[in-house]
């Protein structure tokens, strides 16, 4: 029997990560162009939050694979069904890739890592160049995917009115009418 809504733990992790990821994207994109006293604080915050997000995404993947989750509405057109599946796969892939790229680029650049984590890539300037650029572009792609995800959630809630947003809503869920 499939549930009507996501497990409370899945909803908690979803919204916690939503807040952290959107904060991270804004911190990341603003810190590289900032040379004020905010710069070092933002960089520290970015690394600490990135580590927290890496742990959260691993928990999240575990939850997704073990907890039952509600099905998409039966009347959803095939193309939208495909788009939902593909965009979620992309979101999971980017959520996992972003912190790993960050960690690997610090390793390749010869930079110290938070909590003295070990290097996961050799110290190599050319590898650093590739990883640093990949981290940036993956960040833009993640922001675009989050934006589409948000637009789609609002479409479900406000236009289709089909209960999809309610299935992930953070508050208590009213039984549907």
């Amino acid at each position, binding site marked *: 029997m499939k549930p009507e809504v996501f497990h409370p733990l899945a909803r908690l992790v979803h919204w916690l990560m939503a807040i952290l990821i959107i904060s991270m994207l*804004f911190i990341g994109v603003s810190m590289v162009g900032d040379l004020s006293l905010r710069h070092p604080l933002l960089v520290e915050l970015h690394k600490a939050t990135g580590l927290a997000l890496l742990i959260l995404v691993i928990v999240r993947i575990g939850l997704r694979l073990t907890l039952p989750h509600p099905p998409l509405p039966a009347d959803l057109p095939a193309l939208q069904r495909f788009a939902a599946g593909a965009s979620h796969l992309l979101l999971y892939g980017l959520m996992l890739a972003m912190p790993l790229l960050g960690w690997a680029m610090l390793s390749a650049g010869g930079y110290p890592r938070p909590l003295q984590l070990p290097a996961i890539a050799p110290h190599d300037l050319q590898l650093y160049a590739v990883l640093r650029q990949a981290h940036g572009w993956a960040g833009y792609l993640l922001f675009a995917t989050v934006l589409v995800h948000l637009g789609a959630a609002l479409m479900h809630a*406000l236009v289709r009115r089909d209960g999809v947003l309610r299935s992930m809503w953070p508050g208590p869920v009213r039984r549907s009418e």
Partner: protein
Amino acid sequence: MNSPLQGPAKALRLAGIGAVMLALGAGFAYAAGWIGGPQLTPQRIIDTFEAQAGHHPGYRKNHAKGLCISGYFQPSGQAANLSTARAFSQARVPVIGRFAIGGANPFAPDTGVPVRSLAIQLSTDDGQIWRTGMNNPPVLAVSNPQGFYDQVLAGAPDPATGKPDPAKLQAFFAAHPESAAFRQWAASYKPSDSFASTQYHSINAFRLIDASGTAHPVRWQLEPQTPFNPLPGQVDDKQFLQHDLQQRLAQGPLRWTLRLVLADPGDAVDDPARPWPAERRSVDAGTLVVEQVDAPEQGACRDLNFDPLILPSGIKPSADPILAARSAAYSESFNRRSRESLGAGAQR
């Protein structure tokens, strides 16, 4: 379950959703600096260096010309009660580093540039890293990044003469009275004939953290143990300082004393343009011993960013705005030269 909306109600809500997405996208673009007024950014500072000295792929965007060195630091033990940093207590700390001259031109003659620098990395046995980039002037001419940018613009070489326009420099100094201490230093400075007999200063202040958690504001300097000899009036060798360093190190190691100068309450901790009184208490923290030098553009220092905010526990930054700006600009320089290293035929 409600039925899907149709007609004008649907159009209105679609427009609302579009507006939310657009607003978030615009917020992101603003945070990234893609829209909004012109700001002083690390990118703009590095662009300006490249505009003045030319584009030299693969080289550092400032202090472009230098040599990698290695050696060790031997602490005296006298600083261990001021900071818990392992570098002040470990018997012998491996060091790699880089001597360089100021400026963004990797082909400038060594003695054509007054600024000399020494950047070092100390790697302690607790797994921590301390990087510090030091210059020969004890103070900067400016107190903040905008002042620094103004100074770079004022020092732009005149296309006709290849030298900075004296009128522009004069206007800059007139507009920046905080440069008084720097001008006084520059007027009395006698360059030595070697990197080895040059004194290097931390430029910015930091805070040493002792075992009880108390912070001690500090500037540090490397005092040469090699006797001073003035630079000859006429130097023809463009690699004069590099050749000198190679010759000296072929004969034996070179030494500097790392001196920690401690601030009194009221001293300008967050302003790199203002010197502290000469009678401030200082501590001999140990000896830097340089043993080896690598070939130009080779060696362990090449692929490192000597970001002055890479600090071990026991040393923290001050709130000096130039310190934060250095960290941001060094990172941009490192990112650019790493990208350039991917290009075919790029020099490094």
